[in-house]
């Protein structure tokens, strides 16, 4: 097989090319030598090509069952479906580090290509920074965690893939998250390039605006896909357990969300320059930190299968080095990063944004502390202290509610300074909507304080957003003489970032309401024989009855399945069947559960086949052997999390959509206010205000 051999050779070739490129990029930038910079830019493309080849080599080794490779032997077997063999590239530490490098390389090549005739003062340093990151990952891939390492002999078969990873989300969730992690290297590289080149105005933010949004979008979806995976596969009825690796993916998202908001203050008001630089550096460090936590084996987690702690120290060294150099550059440039304008009033939109940033960072440090605390105490005392969901929920639920409330406050407050009278007038309707809903729910019997607050504040935010759309549409319709629908269409299409952002907020509110539903989860655990019934009352008042029909067995490619069938009745009316499984993979000892889920808009019926009394006996058709224990749950509003994610996606795509017209070509044009649809709050004139005109 030629491809794995060539792939390994390509990986070895990529490192010197990356080092050559990074040296030439910095020298070319310093000496003003375009030939050196071009060679460095070509190095970026060459590394991308070589990493594509290396990745193809790994996938080829999986597809062709080449168990002489340690990595293939440990993460595959002959019976594994082709689908998962391809995904083997990111199934374990060694392959996923190559996959990280590949993603970074592709994004780097795109950044170099898009900027071949633009932003040239930044590019030598951008290329240099990207190749430094790339070289680091290549060093890890080659010297510490090599996917092409050969065993001393060729085993006849592999050890197989962890059964929990054999789920279709395995093909979707990790790549999405990695796309988020790696794409954030581009804004980071531009920020460092701004510091190195001395071009410290908002240009680096303008240039990377869509990159930031794209990274945030991938991170958000990667996290939500992971939640869906946990919900479907881990079989405990929840979607978030504050697992260290879950937390690790949340950390850069929190920082990126803060950054996404604070850059607007720099763009509109020329303020918070140091803060934005600090945030972009912090977000990048957290993306590397997340990769480090996931793949170093330092913290035990369902995600972490690595044993080699050498890699942990190397990662920590890299993180420390990047932090020292980046913040060192920032300190060096401090005198030139003063704000153009001061804060004028505490009651202003920029203050609301700053508060949003502080709260997000509060959440970030709480999660970081809770994640690292067990490790730190273990380091000092030798005994591990578990920090579980109660700590994280206690800290983060109030923080989340405060953030939710700010999503409603921000759009209503004016920039610079807002008067109390106007605030009261603008808040009257949304606050009333929130209070009415809270009161109605309380009168309806809801007694859970946090849930009441979530729904009340959520309704307030939704009302604010609806009123914003209404006012904008009405203003535009009045000024331009358009019909309401056309006015709404133009309103959104002329300032996609702003209105797309509001739609993202709607998605976040819906997701929060989905979280709120968890306060009312109910469950029952019962052992039954075929023909017997499990009964459970939904928090909405209706009653589910599940009649256990029995178990059937089947043999799939690499496992045996025990499939329990249950008839579902809602208030006595049949509404269908639900199946829940036990699977015994041929490569593992412990059987795993596959849950059965019946989803509706308002609730999920969630059935876990916990145990089967006599699994081998089922093959003999003995009725007693089919006695099984089920855990049945009703999870209200859980589907809203996934619907909210869809709304969030639509909003982000609107905000990301590129503008039309000749302005797309123009750098000077981007510096001009109101440059078309994608411009933030690009209102065109005093008579046709921000986001209304066009």
């Amino acid at each position, binding site marked *: 097989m*030629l491809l794995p*051999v*060539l792939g390994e*050779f390509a990986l070895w*070739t990529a490192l010197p*090319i990356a080092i050559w*490129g990074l040296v030439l990029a910095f020298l070319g*930038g310093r000496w003003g030598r*375009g*030939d*050196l*910079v071009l060679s460095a830019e070509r190095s970026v493309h*060459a590394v991308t090509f070589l990493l594509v080849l290396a990745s193809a080599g790994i996938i080829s080794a999986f597809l062709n069952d080449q168990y002489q490779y340690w990595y293939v032997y440990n993460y595959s077997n002959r019976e594994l479906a082709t689908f998962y063999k391809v995904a083997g590239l990111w199934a374990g530490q060694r392959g996923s580090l190559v996959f990280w490098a590949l993603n970074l390389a592709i*994004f780097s090549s795109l950044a170099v290509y*898009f*900027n071949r*005739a633009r*932003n040239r003062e*930044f590019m030598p340093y951008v290329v240099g920074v990207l190749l430094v990151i790339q070289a680091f990952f290549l060093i890890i891939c080659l010297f510490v965690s090599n996917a092409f390492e050969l065993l001393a002999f060729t085993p006849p078969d592999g050890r197989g893939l962890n059964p929990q990873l054999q789920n279709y989300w395995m093909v979707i969730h990790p790549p999405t998250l990695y796309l988020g992690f790696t794409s954030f290297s581009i804004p980071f590289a531009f920020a460092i390039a701004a510091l190195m080149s001395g071009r410290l105005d908002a*240009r680096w933010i*303008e*240039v990377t605006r*869509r*990159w930031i949004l794209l990274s945030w979008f991938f991170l958000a979806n990667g996290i939500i896909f992971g939640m869906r995976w946990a919900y479907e596969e881990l079989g405990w009825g929840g979607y978030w357990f504050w697992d260290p690796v879950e937390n690790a993916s949340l950390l850069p998202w929190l920082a990126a969300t803060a950054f996404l908001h604070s850059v607007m203050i720099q*763009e509109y008001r*020329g303020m918070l320059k140091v803060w934005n630089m600090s945030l972009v550096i912090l977000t990048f460090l957290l993306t590397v930190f997340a990769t480090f936590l996931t793949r170093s084996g330092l913290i035990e987690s369902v995600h972490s299968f690595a044993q080699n702690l050498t890699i942990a120290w190397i990662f920590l060294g890299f993180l420390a080095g990047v932090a020292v150099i980046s913040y060192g550059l920032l300190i060096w440039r401090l005198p030139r990063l003063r704000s*153009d304008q001061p804060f004028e009033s505490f009651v202003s939109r920029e203050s609301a944004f700053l508060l949003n940033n502080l709260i997000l960072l509060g959440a970030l440090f709480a999660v970081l502390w809770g994640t690292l605390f067990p490790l730190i105490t273990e380091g000092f005392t030798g005994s591990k202290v578990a920090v579980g969901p109660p700590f994280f929920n206690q800290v983060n639920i109030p923080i989340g509610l405060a953030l939710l409330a700010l999503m409603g406050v921000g759009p209503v407050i*004016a920039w610079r300074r807002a*008067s109390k009278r*106007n605030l009261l*007038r603008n808040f009257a309707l949304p606050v009333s909507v929130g209070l009415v809903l809270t009161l109605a729910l309380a009168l309806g019997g809801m007694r859970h304080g946090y849930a009441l607050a979530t729904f009340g504040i959520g309704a307030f935010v939704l009302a604010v957003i609806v009123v914003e759309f209404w006012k904008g549409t009405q*203003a535009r319709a009045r000024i331009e003489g358009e019909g309401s629908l056309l006015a709404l269409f133009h309103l959104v299409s002329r300032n996609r970032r702003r209105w797309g952002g509001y739609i993202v907020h709607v998605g976040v509110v819906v997701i929060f309401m989905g979280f709120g539903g968890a306060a009312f989860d109910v469950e029952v655990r019962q052992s039954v024989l075929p023909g017997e019934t499990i009964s459970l009352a939904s928090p909405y008042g209706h009653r589910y009855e599940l009649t256990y029909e029995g178990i059937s067995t089947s043999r799939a490619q690499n496992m045996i399945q025990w499939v329990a069938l249950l008839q579902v009745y809602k208030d006595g009316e049949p509404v269908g069947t639900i199946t829940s499984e036990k699977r015994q993979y041929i490569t593992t000892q412990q059987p795993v559960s596959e849950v059965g889920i019946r989803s509706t808009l308002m609730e999920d019926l969630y059935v876990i086949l916990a145990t089967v009394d006599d699994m081998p006996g089922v093959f003999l058709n003995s009725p007693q052997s089919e006695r099984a224990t089920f855990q049945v749950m009703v999870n209200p509003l859980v589907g809203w999390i996934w619907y909210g994610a869809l709304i969030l996606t639509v909003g982000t795509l609107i905000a990301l959509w590129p503008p*039309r*017209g*000749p*302005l*797309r*070509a*123009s*750098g*000077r*044009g*981007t*510096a*001009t*206010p*109101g*440059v*078309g649809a994608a411009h*933030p*709050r*690009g*209102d*065109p*004139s*005093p008579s046709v*205000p*921000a986001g*209304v*005109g066009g």
Partner: protein
Amino acid sequence: MALMAAILLAGGVVLYVLLPVLTGESSPLDRLDDEATEEDSRRRVTLLALRDVEYDYVTGKLDELDYKSLRREISTEALEAMDRSASAAGTPPPASAGVATSERERLLEEEIQELRRGLKTGGLCPGCGAALAPGGHFCGRCGQALRAPPSGGDSAGTP
């Protein structure tokens, strides 16, 4: 076979990377004339602020009193920024040459109105930001030739 392929691969990649150093072919390192300068960015920030104040006033987030005082403050900032931007671009600053304040405000209003027209027709000049006539090949204000956009975007660095 594998060795031959590896040698070809390495040779091809090294040649591709080294060629610019050997031939002197180079990438541009300077900002292009039509790219935004720092002065442009400052000008943009102030004009954005002006438009935000307008929107906040129209949608009832600002009192008339606050609106008027803010508008006065930001207009002054905007005019100063426009002067600096024009100086940096090498064109005579309309305000600094002794033009009366009312005349400067009129120029600002004109610029805003032009932007509005540009947004309605979908085109603004990449050089000076003036509104473009539909189908025109040159900017009516600064005379810049209008070329087809390279495959970038308003921020060529964005994906």
